[in-house]
């Protein structure tokens, strides 16, 4: 008893600690983003000041303090340039004269290097003087990014997750344990997701803000060098781009297009220097440190859940020796199929929603987030409605076909030779494309493919023939499972054929019938090949419409939206299938 209680204490602490460490990891990630921003901005500003206050061509020249002071005033008042900046000339602050002066030790530590340093809450970048290796001053930038909007959420979620973790720990191996653990796991997952996305957004904001502010500096510096060609400017201003890259922009796009190109996040920012000269400022590649931090945060958020499960096994291990070994083996057996299903069946469900809510072109790939606009777009087209309507009409053949197939199977079951069964099974495995062509070739002579409506009814007949051939063997397999002794007993009791069907065959065969009917409907709704090969007057069935939207018009987003609609429509049938297939599948041992 004591051991379990100690267990629960330890588990509770671990659960809370795991969430707390996840929070610390993401908070650290945000601070890292701020720090990167400050360091880059300080480096850019230092390079800017060094560049604009050095008279070009003549060097070395002693720096003129008055000119430097003017430059600093310009820097502090540049429009669209907003960092919390302080410039020291030597140790004296120039922007806010009342600030305390810079300790000599700071300058000394900066003197030997050209990259910015981070001291207590600010990034310090040395301003190189005209003579190499000398420092005339220091730029200090304090991070001030826009406030983190998700912070209250994050804290609330943090508290909730920690609370749930503590409760789950106290319920360890009690009756409701699984429920609490599930709630805790879900909450931890949500917390990890929100925290990681908040940290990611902060990093992105900081990069974009630095890009835009550096562009202002480069523009200002470039406007002073009117006649220098862009290739030389890119080299001269290299230091101002910090760890980003500055390249001459030689494309011939119109001005507006270039300006618009700069508004897309992640793309290089075009900078106009006047006189048709353009530079392109590329942000530095994403930091692997930050990615690693996100991974750490995600792992930490879920570590508590994993730990609780592990502790629960440990506690239960005395009752079931070898259980951990068996569990590990089971996961190894499940791994290949599980990995594939996760990657190519479960993940696509998320990707489907993602594609359906973004602009997505076949050739150029993903674009901006558009929400439900794609669904609305698809729904607003008459084509969609006619395709969905015709698909529904087309699928109506399924129940009729199932009834006919059942009848034929009942007949074939009594046939004394297996030849009849084989003959019934083989035809549907002919090439569907060829079948479509042969029907079209034969029936088009009577004008049956001349307009979409008669083509639809013709397709229904073809589909019915194919489906019957497919369903008869299915019914035969179902009938073979019914013990023949039941019918024999009924015959002895003098039951008629109809009574035997009503009282024995039909009830015992009902799940099979339902399964076949549902599969028939689902197959019919997804019907593609027949409509594809019997075009161009063939009815635009949903699957064909989806294919044409996606791979003929190149609008994968609209195709995805249509797929979502189809999924909603088919959900009822899929749910019924799950119910039928799941009946008796899961035993209680």
């Amino acid at each position, binding site marked *: 008893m004591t051991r379990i209680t100690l267990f629960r204490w330890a588990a509770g602490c671990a659960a809370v600690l795991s969430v707390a460490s996840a929070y610390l990891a993401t908070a650290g990630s945000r601070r890292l983003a701020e720090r990167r921003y400050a360091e880059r901005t300080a480096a850019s500003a230092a390079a800017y000041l060094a560049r604009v206050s050095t008279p070009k061509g003549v060097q070395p020249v002693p720096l003129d303090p008055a000119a430097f002071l003017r430059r600093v005033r310009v820097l502090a008042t540049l429009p669209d340039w907003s960092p919390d900046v302080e410039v020291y000339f030597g140790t004296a602050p120039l922007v806010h004269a009342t600030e305390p002066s810079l300790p000599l030790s700071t300058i000394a530590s900066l003197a030997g290097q050209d990259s910015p340093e981070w001291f207590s809450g600010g990034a310090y970048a040395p301003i190189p003087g005209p003579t190499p290796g000398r420092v005339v001053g220091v730029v200090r930038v304090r991070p001030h990014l826009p406030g983190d909007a998700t912070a209250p959420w994050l804290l609330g979620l943090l508290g909730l997750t920690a609370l749930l973790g503590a409760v789950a720990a106290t319920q360890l191996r009690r009756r409701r344990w699984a429920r609490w653990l599930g709630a805790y796991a879900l909450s931890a997952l949500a917390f990890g997701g929100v925290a990681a996305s908040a940290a990611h957004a902060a990093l992105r904001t900081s990069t974009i803000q630095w890009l835009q502010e550096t562009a202002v500096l480069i523009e200002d510096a470039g406007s002073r060098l009117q006649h220098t060609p862009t290739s030389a400017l890119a080299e001269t201003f290299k230091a101002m781009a910090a760890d980003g890259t500055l390249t001459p922009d030689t494309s011939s796009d119109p001005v507006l297009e270039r300006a618009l190109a700069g508004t897309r996040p992640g793309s290089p920012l075009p900078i106009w220097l006047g006189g048709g000269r353009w530079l392109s400022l590329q942000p530095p590649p994403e930091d692997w440190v930050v990615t690693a931090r996100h991974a750490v945060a995600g792992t930490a958020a879920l570590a508590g859940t994993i730990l609780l499960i592990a502790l629960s096994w440990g506690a239960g291990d005395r009752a079931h020796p070898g259980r951990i070994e*068996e569990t590990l083996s089971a996961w190894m057996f499940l791994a290949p199929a599980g990995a594939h299903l996760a990657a190519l069946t479960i993940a696509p*469900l998320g990707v489907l929603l993602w594609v359906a809510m973004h602009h997505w072109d076949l050739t150029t790939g993903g674009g901006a987030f558009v929400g439900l606009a794609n669904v609305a777009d698809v729904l607003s087209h008459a084509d969609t409605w006619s395709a969905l309507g015709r698909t529904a009409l087309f699928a109506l053949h399924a129940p009729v076909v199932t009834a006919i197939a059942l009848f034929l199977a009942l007949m074939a079951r009594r046939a004394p030779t297996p030849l009849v069964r084989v003959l019934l099974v083989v*035809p549907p495995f002919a090439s569907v494309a060829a079948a479509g062509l042969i029907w079209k070739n034969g029936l088009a002579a009577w004008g049956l493919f001349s307009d979409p409506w008669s083509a639809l009814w013709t397709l229904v007949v073809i589909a019915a023939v194919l489906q019957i051939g497919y369903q008869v063997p299915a019914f035969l397999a179902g009938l073979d499972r019914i013990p*023949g002794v039941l019918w024999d007993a009924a015959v002895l009791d003098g039951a008629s054929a109809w009574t035997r069907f009503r009282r024995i065959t039909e009830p015992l065969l009902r799940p099979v019938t339902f*399964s076949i009917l549902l599969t028939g409907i689902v197959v019919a709704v997804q019907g593609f090949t027949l409509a594809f090969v019997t075009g161009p007057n063939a009815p635009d069935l949903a699957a064909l419409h989806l294919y044409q939207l996606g791979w003929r018009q190149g609008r994968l987003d609209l195709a995805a939206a249509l797929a979502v609609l189809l999924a909603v429509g088919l959900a009822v049938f899929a749910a019924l299938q799950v119910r039928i297939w799941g009946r008796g599948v899961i035993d209680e041992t």
Partner: protein
Amino acid sequence: MRRNWGTWGATLVAGFSALVLAVPVLYEISVSLMTPVESRALPPAAVPIDPQFANYLTGWNGIGAGGLLFTTALLAVLAAALQILTGAAAAFALARLRFPGRRTIIRGVIVLAAIPSIVLLVPRYVMVDAWGWSDEFTGLAAPALVSAGAVLFLYQVFRALPRGPEEAARLDGAGHWRVFSRVVVPQARPALAVVAGFAILAQWRGLLWPLVVSHRAGPEVAEQGLARRLVEGASGLSVPELLAVGVTIAVPAMAIAACVALARARTATAARRTALTGGSLERHVPAEVSPLTPGPFEHQIL
């Protein structure tokens, strides 16, 4: 006597229906032997006056059927082998090993098996394209290598197997892997053959995924090669020649289907004669999930 009449009547009805169902296929073969002029005749001719067996050769060469059939066969065999391997392993774990979350996973597999493939078409393409597999054989094969339906079916089969041999093997010191590979799999061979058969047929008849994933210039499977030429009409082949290709590429699929059907018909008849409950393995599996009824297997037949 009455019973005899009923049997004969039923056989007659079934045989006649089988013939009716076979009419399109027979007509397909018939037209594939016609001259182009005959195939366009009004009213349509039933049989060729002078069978043009050369159509098969012209069609085969004109469409490159050898390459198409090779790709299809490679794809089908790969899909069958991997569906059996991964499906049997997963089904063994679900049916025979005890571990937390087992029932949740089974429920999940059932749900996955019920997802219509059209829903997954766009995202699978987007993912495969992002991995650089579109217009490659890899992309063509990727989604077919594991089937949730196969896992579900084999789970049912394994669950119905007697536990005696396994327990004996365990007493002799066999581990999970040995029990799986030496005891469970050999007992389930007929079921594995069924999975293989359906995997092959699904690959043989699937059109939408190959069409999508190889939409630029990727490798083609037989059905796709035929359908594309039917639609584009730029193959330089006449209708009878195209149909000859259609008959040729369907022969392997129909042969497999006939073998499966014959084997099943034999066991079913034998089982009905010998025992009340029957000896066939299929009998122990709930009919709802059996691939022959037609269960949770992917199929594009329309």
